[in-house]
């Protein structure tokens, strides 16, 4: 799965990407095309790099990276042996100078995780006068003949007075000669630079990668994210897990996000709890953090150790696709069926299902959820669902949102044995200041 596809998972990953300040378009391109990492070694290598950037001051480098341009096509044309235009040669020179500048900054900061190839030869080829400025044209010093012709052109063009027909003709011939010599020089330059195409490509790629790392490190500091530990043993724990988007949202109302602790392994997990207790937020955040880890971002928790998976499925019950002619119930059942098939095939999957069978009657709904937990009693990754139904299965781990205490919602999770779900719906509805007669009638019905 590429990061671009992962952005469609409705868990808040897009929010994280929008708040990731990558400076260059090629950095963004690199991140969007990144594949989800699944092995311990590659993820650890990635975080090793990120860690070094995190511990350095890269603000000046980030500022320079704003000027990084995506010239992949130009480099490809150079590698193919095409004669480049002077605009393209300018792009090459610009990249080489920028790369050298950033290489110097990296050296100053003693950053070693990003290596940039030496492009001095490219610079000297495109800067015959040794001016060391990022501008380019076919300099006079490339050819004596060119110098002479240009002298003649300058003499004719002079101060822009009207030319006689004769002079005009002479000028046209000179300009044509000038263009011919420029072409020959561009051919030579392109040929001379051809061997550096792979170095240039490497420089462009590594600079884009650096841009992404700096953005991620900056995001970690700004959003208080942590470096995750990863494993393949099957157990995952989070301490102080939070959802950045929700945290920001409620901070605007002057409230604080209550961090959550959770751990799980191959045994299915059920989360029960009152309405508005943040069960769905927990599921979304688990999906989000799994993606953040496997795409090399900082993770939204105080600390964590995460079991790596091959696939992440988040089923939050709004898969209703009227266009496909399916009701919400049918769409949900089909989505869960896919999860069952995958776990049977032994796919290492993190499957997160929010209130399965919620749209049907409670009696059959309970039966369906219990049946689901009997069917998936052991998964290679992890299987977590939330529910309001009384589930009696033994082979599950149960969490319960602490819920209302003295009219205040406690969102933290606690492990629990009993299957009995909390009965707080009416109290919570009442706290929302809705129609009092409705609440009275509901209470009466409950007591009957």
């Amino acid at each position, binding site marked *: 799965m590429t990061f671009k596809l992962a952005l469609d998972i409705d868990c808040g990953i897009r929010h994280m990407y929008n708040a990731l300040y990558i400076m260059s*378009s090629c950095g963004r391109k690199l991140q969007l095309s990144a594949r989800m990492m699944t092995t311990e070694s590659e993820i650890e290598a990635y975080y090793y790099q990120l860690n070094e950037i995190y511990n350095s001051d890269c603000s000046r480098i980030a500022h320079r990276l704003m000027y990084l*341009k995506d010239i992949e096509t130009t480099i490809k044309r150079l590698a193919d042996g095409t004669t480049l*235009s*002077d*605009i393209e040669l*300018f*792009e090459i020179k*610009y990249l080489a100078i920028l790369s050298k500048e950033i290489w110097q900054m990296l050296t100053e900061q003693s950053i070693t995780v990003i290596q940039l190839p030496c492009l001095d030869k490219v610079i000297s080829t495109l800067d015959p006068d040794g001016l060391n400025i*990022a*501008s*380019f*044209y076919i300099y006079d010093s490339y050819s004596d003949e060119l110098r002479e012709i*240009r002298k003649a*052109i*300058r003499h004719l*063009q*002079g*101060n*822009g007075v009207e030319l006689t027909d004769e002079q005009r003709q002479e000028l046209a011939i000179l*300009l044509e000669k*000038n263009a011919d010599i420029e072409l020959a020089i561009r051919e030579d330059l392109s040929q001379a630079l051809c061997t550096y195409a792979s170095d240039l490509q490497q420089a462009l790629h590594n600079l884009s990668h650096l841009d992404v790392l700096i953005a991620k490190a900056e995001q970690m500091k700004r959003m208080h994210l942590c470096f995750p530990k990863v494993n393949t043993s099957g157990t995952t724990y989070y301490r102080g897990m939070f959802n950045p988007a929700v945290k920001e949202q409620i901070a605007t109302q002057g409230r604080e996000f209550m961090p959550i602790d959770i751990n799980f392994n191959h045994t299915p997990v059920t989360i029960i709890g009152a309405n508005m207790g943040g069960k769905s937020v927990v599921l979304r955040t688990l999906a989000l953090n799994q993606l953040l880890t496997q795409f090399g971002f900082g993770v939204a928790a105080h600390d964590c150790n995460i079991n790596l998976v091959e696939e992440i499925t988040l089923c939050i019950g709004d898969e209703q696709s009227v266009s496909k002619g399916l009701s919400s119930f049918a769409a949900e059942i089909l989505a869960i069926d896919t999860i069952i098939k995958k776990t049977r095939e032994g796919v290492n999957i993190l499957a997160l299902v929010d209130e399965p069978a919620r749209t049907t009657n409670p009696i059959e709904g309970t039966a369906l959820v219990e049946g689901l937990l009997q069917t998936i009693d052991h998964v290679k990754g992890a299987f977590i669902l939330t529910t309001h139904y009384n589930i009696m299965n033994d082979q599950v781990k149960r969490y319960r949102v602490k819920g209302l205490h003295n009219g205040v919602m406690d969102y933290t999770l606690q492990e629990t044995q009993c299957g009995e779900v909390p009965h707080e719906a009416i109290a919570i509805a009442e706290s929302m200041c809705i129609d009092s007669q409705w609440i009275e009638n509901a209470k009466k019905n409950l007591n009957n």
Partner: protein
Amino acid sequence: MPFINEILEYESLSIVGLEKNVGKTECLNYILNRLPLHERKVAVTSIGIDGENKDQVTATKKPEIFMREGMYFSTAETFYKERRLVSELVDISNERSSLGRIVTARVTIPGKVIISGPSSGTSLQRWIGSMQQLGINLTIIDGAISRLSSASPAISKAMILSTGAAFSSNIDTLVRKTRFVVEMMALPLLEDTSIDLLRDKDNGVWGIDIHDAIKDFKLSSALAINTTDVDITQEMKIIYTAGALTDRLLNAIADSKNIRQVTLVVKDFTKIFISEGAYRIFCSRGGKIRVLQKSKLIAVCVNPTAPNGYVLDSDILCRKLEEALQLPIYDIVKNKYDI
């Protein structure tokens, strides 16, 4: 050498024409040839296409743009490749036009080039910003046919207007139409303490009442005004339209009994799309229009020759325009104005 020194008082200039073939490029060349480049770093761009030697519509001969050594220009990649001068590339912008990316170069050997740069207001503002980063202290924007937007004070601080026989081949009509445009350009700035309330409004129609309280009329634009609605001038001292001002709003206010108490305000003259007739009625009933921003009209240039071959008498035209506009009028082609 008329008006060159005046230009140097500003950091940005736009040249706008009231019609095609009114001598805009002649005017640009006149300026480019005379600017003291040892004093100023100058950059030129165009929101249309400038410097091609044959008109794409009327197939008549057109003046080409001559760039002197040391000047900067921004044009599309396609035209850069066709340049007939030697120049050093200094920047490639991320913005794309239909003719490729926009590149900026400094002229090392003078010559001719076709110029076609950024075209929208915001991209022009970005262009001016990036030129300032290059140390440019005079940016010149060549406007395009019947598009005054580049002359908006939000973009350039000073402007030069080109008019001529191509706009109308009847001297009196030409004078009357030009006078109306110049009148709009010369509308006075709003002088009111509540001016700051209006600056950040980007759309809609707003009012400021006699107690200096701002009111949103909940109209998406002045086009949504219907004369049968309630009178929006009630208790108001200012009516502000952030978008275009059209006859509909103007007439609605002209018909109101409060017309003498209320001032109609627009962002700048480029937002005004009213007919002269409606404006005259509005004024005769005591109405007044003010602007939030204003740019300086430095001069008016005329071209007495129309592309269809019709030629007006330059002296009479200049004299009549001068009388009507109370501004210096220049026929650059005829007078040459050599140094």
